[in-house]
């Protein structure tokens, strides 16, 4: 049994956010972190590893420096890591990215009792599309917004969080699950023993040459050319002015509010 955990290196938006003149993020000048939801996906996988001793494989697509992030995940407890990296993959949107990651997972081979975990969404794009798209491309059942995952045999039970409650869902492996962070859940630290061996653990780089024979790798479905998303414009929205608070639960306050909304043509 193996759990593939898909992770992404993202700019650390808690620090200074640098924006280029054309409105896009200046990624090169920003610190990078492991996407927070992906860290939780790794924690969920490691908890299952603690119980079952299964293999946990960290997978990312990105430039070569993403190796540092993968090694950190190994230091947390992942058994091995795969970096999917190549110029042919550059410029991919979520469609192309999921196509390539799915090809990477297929290249390793997905067994009957394997699972794929992803974070719900990345803090740079916030699309929440890559996980579900990987599931579609691998033909796997998918459960999103998972906060708890338990596995017994080939049956997986997931607590799926909704805005106003949660649902319990069961499915069979192989499957894909996207995980969300909550206040009570914190990813474990790297261990010193893990750090010491992080650069000795199995590590593979899948470039275009390695993956080119996978059926999912088609020239019109990967990289910039294979990306149906077109960004017309990126910009930083102007800051809103300070709002005005009206206090009171009486008719007069309501009338004042209505008058102000009318004045602004909001109603």
């Amino acid at each position, binding site marked *: 049994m193996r759990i593939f955990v898909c992770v992404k290196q993202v700019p650390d938006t808690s620090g200074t956010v640098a924006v280029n003149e054309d409105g896009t993020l200046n990624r090169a000048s920003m610190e990078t972190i492991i996407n927070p939801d992906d860290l939780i996906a790794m924690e969920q996988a490691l908890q299952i590893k603690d119980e079952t001793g299964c293999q946990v494989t960290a997978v990312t697509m990105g430039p070569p420096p993403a190796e*540092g992030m993968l090694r950190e995940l190994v*230091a947390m407890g992942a058994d091995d890591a795969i970096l999917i990296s190549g110029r042919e993959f550059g410029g991919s949107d979520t469609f192309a990215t999921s196509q390539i990651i799915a090809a990477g997972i297929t290249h390793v081979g997905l067994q009957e009792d394997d699972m794929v975990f992803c974070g719900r969404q990345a803090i740079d794009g916030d699309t929440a599309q890559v996980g579900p798209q990987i599931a579609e491309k691998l033909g796997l059942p998918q459960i999103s917004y998972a906060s708890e995952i338990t596995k017994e045999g080939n049956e997986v039970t997931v607590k799926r969080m909704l805005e106003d409650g949660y649902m319990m869902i069961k499915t069979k492996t192989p499957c894909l699950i996207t995980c969300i962070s909550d206040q009570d859940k914190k990813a474990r*630290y*790297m*261990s*010193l*023993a893990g*750090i*010491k061996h992080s650069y000795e653990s199995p590590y593979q780089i899948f470039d275009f040459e390695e993956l080119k024979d996978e059926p999912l790798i088609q020239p019109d479905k990967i990289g910039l050319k294979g990306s149906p998303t077109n960004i017309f414009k990126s910009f930083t929205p102007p800051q809103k002015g300070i709002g005005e608070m009206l206090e009171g639960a009486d008719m007069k306050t309501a009338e004042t509010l209505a008058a102000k909304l009318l004045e602004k043509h909001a109603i």
Partner: protein
Amino acid sequence: MDFSLTKEQEMLKKLAAQFAEEELEPMAQEIDEQHVFPVENFAKMAKQGFTGVNIPEEYGGAGGGQLEKAICVEEFCKKCMSSGATLSIHLMAPETILKHGTKEQKEKYLPQLTKGGVLGAFALTEPSAGTDAAGVRTTAVYDEATDEYILNGTKCFITGGSRADILVIFAMTEPKLGTKGMSAFIVERAFEGFDHGKIENKMGLNGSETAELVLEDCRVPAKNMLGKKNKGFGMAMGALDSARVGVAAQAVGCAEGALELAVQYASERVQFGKPINRLQGIQWYLAEMKTKTEAAKALMLNAVYAAETKKRYSIEASMAKLFCSQTAREVVNLALQIHGGYGYMHDYPLERMYRDAKLTEIYEGTSEVQKLVISRSLVK
């Protein structure tokens, strides 16, 4: 000399910094105010493997060396001196056992200290033997009938003495021989005749309990003698060299932490209509602090390098300890000055750091002793 870190060491530094920020810093003020040893913090350190950072993996350690130890101590001390000092001093016990212990002693005691969550302590100092370590009065008399040594005496100012379960204790096996009659023993708290006395009410480093040890006919199996009989003094001096590098790392961490706070505060505090970091007086303070801190760090790393490559490194250790501790006091002082009245308040960490930093000039050998060690190499 290349002091750049390997990728693994960079990762360790990142982990230690994250751990210090998330686990140690939130407790720093509370443990200082309540004068209490942070049991949970030590347990968390053990869980991650910090408590055996420089001990080989075969004994439950993380397989690092002096540099890995310095990285962790430095990062911890940026946020909480008590916690960083606790780690630094705890490591003296496993380091000494690793260096001088028998295979049996190492297999029995090291895993407990490295990953078992057991705190270690190192007990040399006595009321009459501070700077003059040769003045140890505690005796160890061999009892042939039981194959035990019977220890009698009092140790004082022992960091972690009230909490440690495994201690390296120095006692005179042949008092008339002076320093050539001192031996070391591994003592378990559970041994008959061992107890701790009063816990000192210190000026700073309050999260690290400093206690008196009372040995009253304390029976220690002869097999727990560490190293050879009457060779304890040299072992103690060797252990102190390592401990002094540890104090240098503590002091550098403290200075770096104070500098970070000063830079931050100077950018936020507005006086005369602008942040005070626009004032040249403050800028000069910051420049001075940064320069001294970097110089101290270079000297500390020089001592780490010496410790990893040379058999004797007393001079390097003493120079690092002397300069880093002095720097910590000066940098914290300036950081507090930049904070003005707020720096003097308990609500801000600087007054705590000011009290904590002072100890680095005193323990593991005062600054004056360091000068003695250094000058002896010059004046023959």
